[in-house]
């Protein structure tokens, strides 16, 4: 049977990987036990495939095949290349925490500047104490594999009432080819704190590599958090990221994700509104070309009453690329007065481009306002002709309309500088279009 063959193939590679990596996966006894348990869970499941409902449109067995060997710790040359890439992707004013091939690089990070405002540990340090960071509220094969093999990450704690004077930027840099990188980070935001967290994924010369990242974010009450994730991986890379977010009461969380680059990518977010009176704004743009596959899968769980969630997603799909958006809104029985809206639109730039939109509402309360909308279509010929009649060549006319299309999601970013940075990423993507 094909499936059995694929599973054995994937499983064997990972068995070797786990055995060879064990020396680098140090930690307390319960950490070792947790990793082994997670690994066994992965071995049972294998890479997710189309018959697992959540992975129906992103069949990793077909798209990725097998997990590449674990990346070695970066040497001096790798760190030099990483340093250049970090500079190229710098965001003005942000304080950087850099992970190179899955290992925290203190020498490239702004540890001192951050130390005054946040408490910082690496994942390796955190795992010397206990296995807490390896536990998540839900799991699947890729999350289990991450728990088994995460080599490093950052564990940040922002104190109650802290008002961060600058954004924190976690930069993932890939310098090595034909390897996989497993990272796991945790961010705790204290009561009444205000922070901007940026995550960037970039390549420093590496072309084919696999990223499996997990992020656990816990935001306490009365906080105000902006969270921006910018995926700018190499064209042949794979990036699977799992996010677990819990939000306290009377908190504002504004999240934005940009997916561009990477042959195969998936962002799966599990967001729980656990305190009343909070406002969640989740937005994203997928920019896909050639044969790229980009999946955004989100579960927003309204566990308590009186919260607002807004989701605005835009996908621009060229050539034979494939975009997936799965958005589930759960409203628990007690979560009365929930206000949840989700709008996703796909723009198909070629006859062979594909978009799958799967919105799902699971509503168990009776006094709620929830809705979703999904559209897919091509550029409007009437608008294109108007622009051409005013002197814009076809490609420039298209670019202007594409920018307007993604603009509706990008304008949700409150900070001017960050918004401009994201617009710049979109412009570079448009220039790459053949």
């Amino acid at each position, binding site marked *: 049977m094909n499936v059995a063959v694929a599973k054995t193939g994937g499983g064997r590679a990972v068995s070797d990987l786990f055995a060879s990596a064990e020396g680098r996966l140090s930690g307390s006894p319960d950490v070792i036990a947790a990793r082994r348990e997670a690994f066994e869970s992965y071995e049972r499941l294998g890479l997710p495939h189309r018959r697992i409902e959540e992975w129906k449109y992103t069949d990793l067995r077909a798209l990725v095949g097998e997990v590449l060997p674990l990346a070695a710790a970066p040497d001096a040359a790798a760190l030099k290349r990483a340093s250049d890439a970090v500079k190229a992707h710098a965001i003005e004013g942000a304080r950087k925490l850099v992970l190179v091939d899955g290992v925290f690089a203190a020498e490239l990070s702004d540890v001192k500047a951050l130390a005054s405002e946040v408490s910082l540990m690496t994942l390796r340090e955190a795992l010397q104490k206990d296995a807490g960071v390896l536990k998540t509220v839900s799991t699947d094969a890729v999350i289990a594999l991450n728990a088994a093999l995460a080599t490093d990450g950052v564990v940040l704690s922002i104190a109650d009432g802290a008002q961060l004077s600058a954004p924190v930027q976690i930069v993932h840099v890939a310098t090595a080819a034909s390897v996989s990188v497993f990272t796991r980070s945790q961010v705790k935001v204290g009561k009444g704190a205000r922070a901007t967290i940026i995550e960037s994924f970039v390549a420093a010369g590496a072309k084919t590599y696999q990223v499996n990242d997990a992020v656990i974010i816990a935001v306490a009450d009365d906080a105000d958090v902006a969270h921006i994730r910018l995926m700018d991986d190499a064209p042949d890379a794979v990036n699977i990221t799992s996010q677990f977010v819990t939000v306290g009461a009377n908190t504002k969380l504004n999240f934005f994700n940009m997916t561009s680059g990477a042959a195969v990518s998936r962002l799966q977010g599990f967001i729980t509104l656990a305190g009343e009176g909070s406002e969640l704004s989740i937005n994203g743009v997928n920019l896909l070309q050639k044969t790229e596959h980009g999946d955004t899968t989100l579960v927003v769980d309204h566990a308590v009453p009186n919260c607002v969630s807004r989701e605005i997603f835009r996908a621009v799909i060229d050539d034979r690329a494939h975009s997936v958006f799965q958005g589930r809104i759960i409203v628990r029985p007690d979560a009365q007065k929930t206000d949840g809206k989700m709008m996703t639109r796909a723009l198909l730039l070629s006859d062979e481009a594909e978009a799958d939109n799967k919105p799902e509402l699971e509503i168990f309360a009776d006094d709620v306002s929830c809705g979703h909308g999904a559209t897919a279509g091509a550029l409007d*010929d*009437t*608008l294109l*002709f*108007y*622009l*051409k*009649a*005013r*002197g*814009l*060549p*076809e490609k*420039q*006319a298209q670019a*202007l*309309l594409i*920018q*307007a*299309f993604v*603009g*509706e999601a990008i304008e949700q970013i409150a900070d001017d500088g960050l918004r401009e940075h994201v617009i710049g990423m979109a412009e570079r993507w448009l220039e790459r279009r053949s």
Partner: protein
Amino acid sequence: MMALLEVKDLKVRVEEREILHGLTLTVNEGEVHAIMGPNGSGKSTLSHVIAGKPGYEVTDGQILFKGEDLLEMAPEERAAKGVFLAFQYPVEIPGVATMTFLRTALNAQRKARGESEYSTPDFLKKVREVSKSLNIPQDMLKRGVNVGFSGGEKKRNEVLQMALFEPSLCILDEMDSGLDIDALRIAADGVNALRSPGRAMVVITHYQRLLNYIVPDFVHVMSRGRVVKSGGKELALELEASGYAQFEAA
């Protein structure tokens, strides 16, 4: 006097149906021509074919612009060469700020002509001057192109573009549709200010009313895909009195 636009025996089909059956029209520099005719006579088709809108098949005849074959050019080339169509229904483009659109379009035309692009301060100065004369408030320019504009504002935005791009041929397609008298007067004043010896205009309209404000040098009556009568501005008044019925009989 140089012939700016020469339409010669033009035959045009839309989805297997012939709309223009051999239309001939010559417009010289500095002239204002009105094309009048009942609905379905082919007036708008003519304007679309000149601007290069897709969906029209030219089966015979030719269109020369400054002696060059216009039908060989893409719409954006025509614009850069100096052809401007003021749309009957200007489109709304949400998310594209009017100012961005104007600058991108103007610079694209200049680039195509091998001219240097406008600097931002020069551009802003020019836009402010023109928009002021057309009574277009600055905050309108920050909004998406035509988004939330009234009918009059949309038409004024077309005239604003005409003034900025300085085309040598302006085609005004039913500029009066959907406008009240005050809005029509503002738009027409804007158009009249652009009349010049080097520029020609083709004013397409169903009603004579517009021609009280934009007074033409020549009037052509179109019926069933042909120009059936040409004359001076008095022809428009004649039509207002007698209607199009006399031309409808085959």
